């Protein structure tokens, strides 16, 4: 960005088989000084589609975005499902690397198409909400382009700013949300990337038969598994199907992680969202895909009482962050808060977690939706209080002297209580990303096996947390949505198909045994970066209050010994 030039480089041989998180990590580790200031000249932001992204492989339109996080101070990879990623891949780009700082404080738009790339001034779309700006951009550049954007939160360098992408209907709603990478793009003055894949050559598939065979097996697994199939749990109720389930399990963090059950769970559940969409009709919709080619389709469009569109999407984490975590049991208020978050370009998990910490600090009462909305508007208006809140839950907690700040490495926890689900606590503690549920989804096996014949998994917890983090790192590199894991970790042919489809694109001969190897390679790179950035095992710990505050209804503390946590990556 320092000379506003876009340069095309041939991908070196060593990155030939990489994609997604694997590739963003590789470039960040190679080119970014782990001790750099995340908002200074030496950080970079890397966008990379996954290995099979841009092909017709099902549910594979993920984009990985990497860099050094201003929120955690460590490496970050955040990903989202969007046609933007598919278009980048079809143009033949393995990655876009954004580097340098502009000489003058000004924001830019990078336009990419088959003939190259150019920078355009972004002044006319600066300082506005993304819901206003996206239609203007699609009007100017055509309905078929893909867009990456930062909102006012990123412009103001707030460390809970995410990177926003267009959904299947061109809404500003799909987020590589976590870790504040939106602020890094803000520091570089890159407000938008607009990509047009008209006339693109498409993704080269080396072994078409292997690819076809693989995607067929994967599709079969996704369309038959109870969780991912059409009419299955995710498709019918969305990810918020988990609200009632985690609440019943006593692991649904409520009022800033002070309780494990929320009396308003039913009113804010996936079942309630599904019911309201049907009852209000109009624009309301469940079973909505985030990008073309997704066959799971777990997104939704939430309607207002008159049937007009309110927001997309109320997914589990956002629903919880502004709902149970803030004690708010009103879906319409939650919809308002998600809309504002999408409009300002914020990570909903960090924003909701911050409002909850602010409530703990008595800036509002728990459960007060209108006051929560006022606090969010402080962020949108960029007031001094807004800047504090926009810097995330840990900063807000520090400013207001709050002890109960449920984060790891400066990143607030998502919607699973580690005192009730200890396996996820181990992942939160040891993830290279800070508290992150997608780093390794150990929820199911951990809750399993506490009675009757429910087959306790005999693996020790550290091995489980390690195994899931490795599998996740692999899936994040393929471009497939992490939710394929529900089906492919259960149906062996689905997992084979996942690997075979990668072989088809790359011409490799990986087997399912390579999943842990590749996942390990990805994690080791991240650990190496974090170590050089100053992280020690003291950072792989949950916040202290979880060790002495008993969480109802199970009335347990987080009691996994530190030695167990240290075994996760070094075991």
């Amino acid at each position, binding site marked *: 960005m320092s000379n506003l030039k876009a340069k095309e480089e041939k991908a070196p041989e060593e990155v030939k088989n990489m994609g997604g998180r694997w590739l963003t990590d590789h470039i960040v580790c190679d080119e970014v000084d782990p001790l750099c200031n995340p908002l200074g000249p030496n950080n970079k932001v890397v966008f990379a589609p996954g290995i099979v992204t841009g092909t017709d492989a099902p549910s594979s339109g993920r984009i990985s975005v990497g860099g050094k996080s201003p929120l955690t101070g460590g490496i970050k990879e955040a990903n989202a499902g969007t046609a933007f990623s598919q278009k980048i891949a079809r143009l033949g780009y393995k990655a876009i690397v954004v580097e340098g700082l502009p000489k003058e404080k000004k924001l830019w738009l990078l336009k990419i198409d088959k003939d190259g790339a150019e920078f355009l001034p972004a002044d006319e779309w600066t300082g506005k909400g993304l819901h206003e700006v996206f239609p203007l951009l699609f009007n100017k550049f055509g309905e078929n382009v893909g867009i990456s954007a930062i909102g006012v939160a990123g412009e103001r360098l707030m460390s809970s700013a995410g990177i926003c992408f267009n959904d299947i209907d061109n809404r500003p709603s799909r987020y590589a949300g976590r870790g504040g990478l939106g602020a890094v793009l803000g520091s570089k003055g890159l407000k938008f990337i607009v990509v047009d894949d008209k006339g693109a050559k498409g993704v080269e598939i080396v072994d078409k038969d292997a690819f076809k065979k693989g995607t067929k097996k994967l599709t079969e697994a996704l369309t038959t598994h*109870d*969780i991912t199939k059409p*009419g*299955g*749990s*995710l498709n*019918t*109720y969305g990810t918020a*199907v*988990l609200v*009632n*389930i985690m609440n*019943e*399990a*006593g*692991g649904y963090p409520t009022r800033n992680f002070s309780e*494990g*059950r929320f009396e308003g769970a*039913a*009113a804010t*559940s996936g*079942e*309630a969202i*599904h*019911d*309201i969409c049907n009852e209000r009709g109009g624009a309301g919709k469940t079973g909505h895909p985030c990008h073309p080619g997704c066959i799971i389709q777990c997104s939704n469009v939430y309607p207002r009482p008159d049937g007009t569109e309110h927001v997309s999407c109320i997914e589990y984490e956002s629903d919880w962050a502004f709902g149970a975590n803030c004690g708010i049991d009103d879906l319409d208020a939650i919809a308002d808060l998600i809309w504002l978050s999408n409009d300002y370009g914020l990570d909903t998990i960090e924003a909701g977690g911050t409002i909850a910490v602010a409530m703990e600090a008595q800036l509002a009462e728990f459960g007060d939706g209108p006051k929560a909305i006022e606090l969010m508007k402080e962020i949108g208006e960029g007031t001094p209080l807004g800047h504090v809140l926009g810097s995330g839950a840990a900063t807000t907690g520090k400013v207001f002297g709050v002890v109960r700040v449920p984060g790891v490495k400066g990143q607030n926890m998502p919607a699973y209580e580690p005192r*009730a689900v200890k396996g996820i606590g181990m992942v939160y503690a040891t993830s290279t990303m800070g508290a992150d549920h997608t780093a390794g989804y150990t*929820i*199911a*096996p951990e*809750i*399993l*096996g*506490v*009675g*009757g*014949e*429910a*087959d306790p998994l005999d*693996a020790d917890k550290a*091995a*489980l947390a*390690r*195994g*899931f983090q*490795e*599998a996740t790192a692999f899936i994040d590199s393929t471009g497939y949505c992490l939710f394929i894991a*529900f089906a492919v*970790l*259960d149906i*062996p042919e689905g997992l084979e198909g996942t690997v075979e489809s990668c072989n088809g694109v790359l011409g490799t001969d990986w087997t*399912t045994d390579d999943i*842990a190897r590749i996942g390990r390679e990805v994690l080791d790179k991240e650990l190496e970066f974090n170590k050089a950035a100053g992280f020690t095992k003291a950072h792989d710990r949950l916040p202290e209050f979880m060790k002495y505050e008993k969480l109802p*209804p*199970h009335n347990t503390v987080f009691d996994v010994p530190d030695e167990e946590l240290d075994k996760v990556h070094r075991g």
Partner: protein
Amino acid sequence: MIEIHLYGKLRRFTDTLDPKRESTLLVPAYEGDTIRDIIERIGMPMDEVGSNIFLNGEYSHPSRPVKDGDRLGIFPDDMQLLYKWHFKKEG
């Protein structure tokens, strides 16, 4: 008595069909009862019951014994997300 919380299509075994509210019912429990006995006592077909059954917040198999004062949460087969995953472990 056992307090039962039902979800999705299983709400029809209670008086509250509104998914925005809690659908609960109280069922007597006898010595030696298991979760399966309680399910059968309500008249709920086992094939509509998914794998997401919680006894006092703990994921449980239908063969688990119950006692007076327990809370039992049951999700239907089309509303389960926690699942018995068979993850290939390293080594």
